[in-house]
């Protein structure tokens, strides 16, 4: 049989993991391997150094960004961190100090004896209180309030002044009326809420009336009234003023009938409107009354002298209308006032914007030679020349305003770009026009073409008539940048003729201008113009310098001949100036890569002669700014 080994008895049937690990350990021990020698002292140190160096240079490397940024910075202001100077309180400084020398001790002894504050609170309690009396916050608040009040005041003042300056009679009349109404309404309210106060007010009115009666101020006895009376015969205004005065007089003289509020409180509101003006006075003066009647007006008109002008009548009519309106609600009056305001604002705006003004001016200037004021609105249609040249200027102005508005609206509604492009085309044509008109023949042709164009419904053909009216659109910029499209223009009429003209017409035209070759003429002309426009080489050679002088001398051949005259394959440039080379840079300086860069850097001027103040400051800003008396600390992580 099999031999039993003792060790097998010890073995479990399944190998256990714990023992397995022990086994492994045993086997590992069996593999005999020499332990590595410890590093020599020198080498160990070296390893440590290398590791330390790597980490340290990594630590230091985090400054790279900052360093590069500072090197590239346009401007650096030092110290980088602005320190706020702190003032140590006097008490602290004084408390640390002690009297040492005999003199100091003597002085301090004296101070002690007289009980002067020496060390701790150098301020007496009253002084500290006065220091704390008004905080900065409070002072600021108060100042802000005052500022606001002042601003409001000035605003209201300005508003009042503005309103006072309005010259419109109508406006003032309406304003006055509205005021009167308001007063009435207020009185009504007062009557409702506080009958006693209302009564007092009435009394006041009565007092006023009595005073007037006593003074006879508003009768026609005063100096002013007498002078008016003389003028009144001829002057409508004076007459009206007098009438107004009389009305005032009458109003003040009127006895106010007081109804006791205790008796009929319900009726009061109904009666109130007629309160200050009793019905008995209705015949006297229509201006006085809250509710004028037409019969009352009639006699008034008859009263006036017969030489009334039409305009006066118109005004009167307006007034009548005005008074009819009064029957309507207050809101309408307000609306009217608002309307006034709006009109005024519109006028101000027009006056305020210089561009529009300028446009108006140019328009006026351009229209004058034509002697026919044309409305841009009807530019598309036929030319409308108004015969009435002596129209009132006011009316004309009104028309202009309206028209300009309309023009704008057209622009906004239609496609702006298309309009702009159209204008450009027209401008270019305009530019060409004077040159084209030179030969009389072309002018005639143009006229023919225009006739044809008017017949054809083509859009392009439509433009020329419209062009005249849009003269004001030409800007200086456009004129300067206008391309020379003139080559096409003289040929254009020919093309157009071929397009649509009848054969007989063409024949007629060719017969009429058989003699001249317009195109060639033009080309020659153009070449000439081009030559002229080029800068001419300046000959600085003068006769008489370095040789005999006198009249009728020609500069010698020595001066005029070029050095490379007899050297056909050589160009001797005389551009190089020996005197200038002393000031010139001979080789390209370091940071520049091409000479153009360098020239560019020289060409841009820095001075305030060529730059605006701001640009000048920017261009001449120093790279590094330091402040005298400020300690510049090394950069630190806290600064960033």
């Amino acid at each position, binding site marked *: 049989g099999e031999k039993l080994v003792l060790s097998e008895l010890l073995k479990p049937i399944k190998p256990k993991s714990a023992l397995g690990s022990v086994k492994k350990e045993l086997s590992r021990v069996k593999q005999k391997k020499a332990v590595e020698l410890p590093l020599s002292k020198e080498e160990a140190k070296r390893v440590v*150094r290398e590791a330390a160096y790597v980490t340290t240079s990594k630590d230091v490397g985090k*400054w790279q960004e900052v360093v590069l940024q500072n090197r590239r910075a346009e401007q650096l202001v030092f110290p980088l961190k602005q320190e706020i100077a702190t003032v140590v309180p006097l008490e602290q400084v004084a408390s640390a100090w002690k009297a040492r020398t005999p003199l100091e001790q003597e002085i301090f002894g004296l101070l002690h004896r007289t009980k002067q504050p020496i060390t701790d609170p150098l301020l007496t309690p009253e002084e500290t209180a006065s220091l704390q009396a008004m905080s900065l916050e409070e002072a600021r608040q108060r100042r802000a309030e005052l500022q606001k009040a002042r601003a409001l005041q000035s605003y209201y003042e300005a508003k009042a002044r503005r309103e006072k300056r309005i010259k419109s009679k109508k406006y003032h009349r309406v304003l006055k009326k509205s005021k009167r109404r308001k007063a009435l309404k207020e009185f009504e309210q007062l009557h409702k809420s506080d009958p006693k106060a209302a009564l007092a007010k009435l009394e006041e009115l009565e007092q006023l009336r009595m005073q007037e009666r006593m003074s006879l101020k508003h009768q026609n006895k005063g100096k002013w009234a007498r002078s008016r009376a003389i003028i009144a015969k001829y002057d409508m205004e004076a007459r009206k003023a007098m009438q107004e005065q009389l009305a005032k007089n009458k109003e003040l003289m009127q006895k106010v009938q007081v109804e006791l509020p205790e008796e009929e409180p319900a009726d009061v509101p109904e009666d109130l409107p007629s309160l200050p003006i009793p019905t008995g006075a209705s015949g006297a003066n229509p201006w006085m009354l809250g509710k004028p009647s037409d019969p009352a007006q009639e006699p008034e008109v008859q009263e006036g002298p017969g030489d009334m002008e039409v305009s006066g009548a118109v005004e009167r009519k307006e007034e009548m209308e005005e008074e009819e309106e009064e029957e309507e609600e207050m809101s309408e009056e307000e609306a009217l006032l608002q309307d006034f305001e709006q009109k005024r604002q519109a006028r101000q705006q027009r006056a305020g914007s210089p561009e529009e003004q300028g446009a108006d001016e140019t328009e006026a200037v351009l229209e004058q030679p034509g002697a026919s004021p044309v409305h841009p609105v009807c530019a598309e249609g036929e030319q409308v020349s108004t015969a009435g040249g002596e129209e009132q200027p006011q009316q004309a102005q009104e028309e202009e305003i309206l028209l300009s508005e309309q023009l704008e609206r057209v622009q906004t509604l239609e496609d702006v770009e298309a309009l702009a492009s159209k204008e450009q085309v027209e401008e270019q044509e305009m530019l060409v026009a004077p040159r084209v008109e030179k030969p009389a023949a072309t002018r005639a042709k143009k006229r023919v073409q225009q006739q044809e164009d008017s017949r054809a419904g083509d859009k392009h053909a439509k433009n020329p008539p419209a062009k005249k009216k849009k003269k004001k659109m030409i800007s200086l910029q456009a004129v300067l940048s206008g391309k020379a499209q003139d080559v096409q223009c003289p040929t254009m009429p020919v093309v157009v003729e071929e397009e649509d003209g009848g054969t007989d017409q063409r024949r007629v035209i060719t017969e009429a201008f058989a003699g001249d070759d317009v195109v060639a003429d033009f080309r020659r002309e153009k070449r000439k113009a081009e030559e002229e426009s080029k800068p001419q080489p300046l000959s600085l050679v003068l006769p008489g310098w370095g040789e005999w002088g006198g009249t009728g001398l020609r500069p010698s051949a020595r001066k005029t001949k070029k050095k490379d005259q007899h050297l056909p394959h050589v160009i001797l440039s005389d551009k190089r100036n020996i005197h200038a080379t002393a000031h010139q840079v001979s080789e390209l300086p370091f940071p520049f890569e091409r000479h153009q860069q360098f020239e560019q850097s*020289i060409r841009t001027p*820095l001075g305030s002669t060529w730059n605006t103040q701001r640009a*000048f400051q920017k261009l001449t800003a120093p790279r*590094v700014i330091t402040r*005298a008396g400020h300690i510049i600390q090394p950069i630190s992580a806290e600064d960033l």
Partner: protein
Amino acid sequence: DVSVTLTAVPRNYDPALHPFEVPREYTRALNAAKLERVFAKPFLSSLDGHRDGVNCMAKHPKSLSTVLSGACDGEVKIWNLPKRQCIRTIQAHEGFVRGMCARFCGTSFFTVGDDKTVKQWKMESPEYGEEEEPIHTILGKTVYTGIDHHWKDAVFATCGQQVDIWDEQRTSPMCSLTWGFDSISSVKFNPIETYLLGSCASDRNIVLYDMRKSTPLKKVILNMRTNTLCWNPMEAYVFTAANEDYNLYTFDMRYLESPMRVHMDHVSAVLDVDYSPTGKEFVSASFDKSIRIFPVDKGHSREVYHTKRMQHVITVKWTADSKYILCGSDEMNIRLWKANASEKLGVLAPREKAAMNYNQKLKEKFQYHPKIRRIAQHRHLPKSIFCQIKEQRIMREARRRKELNRRKHSKPGSVPVVSERRKHIVAVVK
């Protein structure tokens, strides 16, 4: 309307009305360059009072008007700059005052001397009846040759045989950092990453340390020994080293294999260097009796200051408002210079300021034009320096020619072209 009249431009800027802009501006630039030279009077005053050569200086961190100086006879003086007066004199050490630095708060300052001591002094003068005594005195084992204070903490570093980092409260160093054995001439804390230190030793190397790990980081060996170094106060990883070989080297501490710039103009050993607080320029003091101002990104100086009586300049400082330069020299004087030679001191009217800015820009714009360049770059030099420059130019040219010839006559590639920057670096040790 007032607002309209105030903003109204009384000019027509149409270019057609103002022709010849370039020639006119050129003339203005020429005039500006001339005026700049006319008004270039940089020397302000000399502070005399030391009885031996000025060996070191320190700025007050909080006060612009105070500066401290230590002399070769162990005397420390505190100066009031506006008054140009010495306000306090201390006999601090026996022998040289090797180094001094002010505490970051400005209440006290430290000095090290040849008598192997580190002393802390109060910034304020002693009260009536008090003795002039240091707050603390630390007796060391070896001579300390330099000291610098941490920018934020109560920690300072000294150098000598090794770099020691001290806590202010203790009499023994927190840690000593060594890498080889040699006398270290200068140690400087980084003003931005304040745990970093740089030192230079007489075995021609510059070593960087990290205070947090208390270990050196890297060492770069140059052709000749570096006298001092200075960290850029605006760029954390940039420092400039003043070398014995007449040059200054600006390094990026992350790439020590070659310096960012070699600044060459001096004709003798450069003894000290200090950055402008703006970090855009630095000033160097040299054994050739002159100081020069270099832009950080330029290889040559923009300004050279010298006077007849100024001897070897040992120490130099740029004031904290970046307006003035102080230099201390062998012949016992401290001189105060304007950092910008032609700058007008005092308050400027706005128009004046605008004109100055405009002139400055004009000069910049036309700086490449020969006439203007000639005027703007003109500087007077004493004959000795002038001759030395000429001599050195010849030497450099000869060396260059020799190298060229050698390259020409040897196997291609066997004499490689070494750039000027790499030429002066011997090795970088990790």
